[in-house]
């Protein structure tokens, strides 16, 4: 990206943030719920984007981590612990389980890894459904309280929306820092060419495990906020469908692009709402739109923008090379 393009991207992000703060003021209860759900799903999707998009490790278990976080938060908060404690516990629990789930990835990749994580997803669902003493089984856990922070109650939908947005903001900042640190570079090296990465001293084992652990921890964080958002959880939202949905968010938004998951979550959470006018046909319409997008741009929504920018920069670079060959000073082509 050139400096001008970076400025435009920054301005666009600032405008989007302003809209996210101001727009909900006029929304009703349901609108606020949908927007809060978008924020929660975005957190889970940026986690998966780290594991899959940056580090190249396929996972069909992100939905299970949302479930693990949600149950951890629901159990703790209904036992009187504050949400902050529940969030830390959810993060830690999903980090550790994610780390362990990373071990198979040290031996297998791609489709095979997808199957292992899929099996884990099913296993987690069975635990949610069958371990009644802990999870309430099919009856779930109701009455998950919303927090009161600094004497302010976040029980109202608008207030809790801001809690969701704040969590999304924090998670985004953390991930932004992470992918810009040497870790981000090592994750991308792991994705592009693990053999070469290892020959440059990159400890591919540790980075693979970290990619799983951090990505899963963000899934857990999303779950820990999802529980007080819906105030009732049961096993049904955390089936394989959620994992597949999160995978779609990452792919549709643009895997490996920082802002991809935000767009992807928008497509997955908001688009179906906007298509309600089509009534019974809305799912068909939704599926067609997603397919068309991916046929037009396999690298997702942000892939379109990236292709355009790359094309421009590549043309500028080749003009520069041609000018250098011709012995012209650089200024002549700028």
């Amino acid at each position, binding site marked *: 990206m050139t400096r001008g393009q970076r400025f435009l991207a920054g301005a666009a992000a600032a405008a989007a943030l302003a809209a996210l703060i101001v727009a909900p003021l006029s929304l009703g209860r349901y609108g606020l719920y949908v927007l809060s759900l978008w924020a929660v799903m975005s957190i889970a999707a940026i986690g998966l984007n780290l594991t899959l998009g940056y580090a190249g490790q396929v996972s069909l278990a992100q939905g299970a981590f949302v479930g693990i976080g949600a149950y951890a938060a629901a159990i703790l908060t209904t036992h009187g612990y504050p949400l902050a404690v529940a969030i830390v516990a959810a993060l830690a629990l999903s980090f550790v389980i994610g780390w362990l789930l990373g071990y198979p990835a040290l031996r297998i990749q791609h489709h095979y890894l997808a199957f292992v994580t899929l099996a884990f997803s099913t296993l987690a669902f069975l635990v949610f459904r069958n371990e009644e003493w802990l999870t309430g089984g099919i009856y779930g856990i109701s009455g998950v309280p919303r927090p009161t922070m600094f004497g302010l109650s976040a029980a109202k939908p608008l207030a809790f929306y801001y809690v969701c947005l704040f969590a999304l903001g924090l998670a985004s900042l953390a991930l932004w820092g992470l992918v810009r*640190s*040497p870790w981000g*570079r090592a994750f991308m*090296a792991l994705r592009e*060419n693990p*053999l070469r*990465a290892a020959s*440059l001293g990159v400890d591919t084992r540790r980075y693979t495990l970290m990619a799983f652990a951090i990505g899963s921890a963000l899934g857990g964080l999303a779950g820990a906020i999802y529980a007080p958002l819906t105030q009732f959880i049961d096993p049904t939202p955390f089936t394989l469908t959620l994992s597949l949905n999160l995978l779609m968010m990452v792919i549709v938004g643009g895997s490996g692009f920082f802002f991809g998951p935000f767009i992807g979550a928008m497509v997955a959470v908001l688009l179906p709402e906007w298509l309600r006018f089509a009534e019974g046909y809305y799912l068909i319409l939704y599926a067609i739109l997603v397919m068309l997008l991916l046929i037009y741009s396999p690298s997702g929504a942000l892939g379109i923008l990236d292709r355009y920018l790359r094309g421009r920069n590549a043309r500028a670079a080749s003009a520069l090379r041609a000018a250098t060959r011709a012995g012209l000073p650089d200024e002549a082509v700028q």
Partner: protein
Amino acid sequence: MTRVLEVSGLRKRFGGIAAVDGVSFHVDEGEILGIIGPNGCGKSTTFNCILGQLAPTEGEVKLDGRVVTGMRPSALNRLGVSRTFQLLQVFPQLSVRENLILAGQEHEGTMLSRLFGPPDAGLGPAADRMIGFFKLDHLANTPAGELSYGQQKLLDAAMAFVAGPRLTLLDEPAGGVNPTMLSTLKERLRAINRQQGATFVVIEHNMEFVMSLCSRLLVMAEGKVLAEGAPEAIRANPAVIEAYLGH
């Protein structure tokens, strides 16, 4: 003179076939050793056994007197053994500068210090020096995938030297590179060898390149060492001519 690398009795079997069959050699500090031999004679397999990419069936590899046989590639690299691959292996989506920073970032500090330290891991200046040294200045911020093949080969070699390695193993650095770029590459490799006393092992098919670059040659055939000596002696060795030209 200090022995940097010592390989003794190295053997690698794949089923019934011994790809490397009892190879022994050493490399002294500041030396450029060339390994030549017909295709399939076990040169690259030898490299992969030394570098921990393959576990040797038998034999021992010593780095500065320390046994490193079977050590993982990333750990070996952090001990100062770097390499380039036969097929070009740069990271196409990262810029030239990012590729070079990546090549050095895992050599200092801990995982934690890299997470909270500066984004370039303090390697910006070192990367820029390497960019200047390999004459890639105007391409520093270009994604490596947009470079020409020869430029990518230069970058590939530059990446092997960022961390100031003790020993560098180059697998066919000249393959597919045009003559102009090749002379740049040779001249740069010589300069690093001279200025920093860097030690190399080079696998190469380009005879002219290898003869003029290396101080000593090792000829392999059918998994064994066929001959060893100065380039002139090797050129005149009848067994070598036989192995190369066939029957």
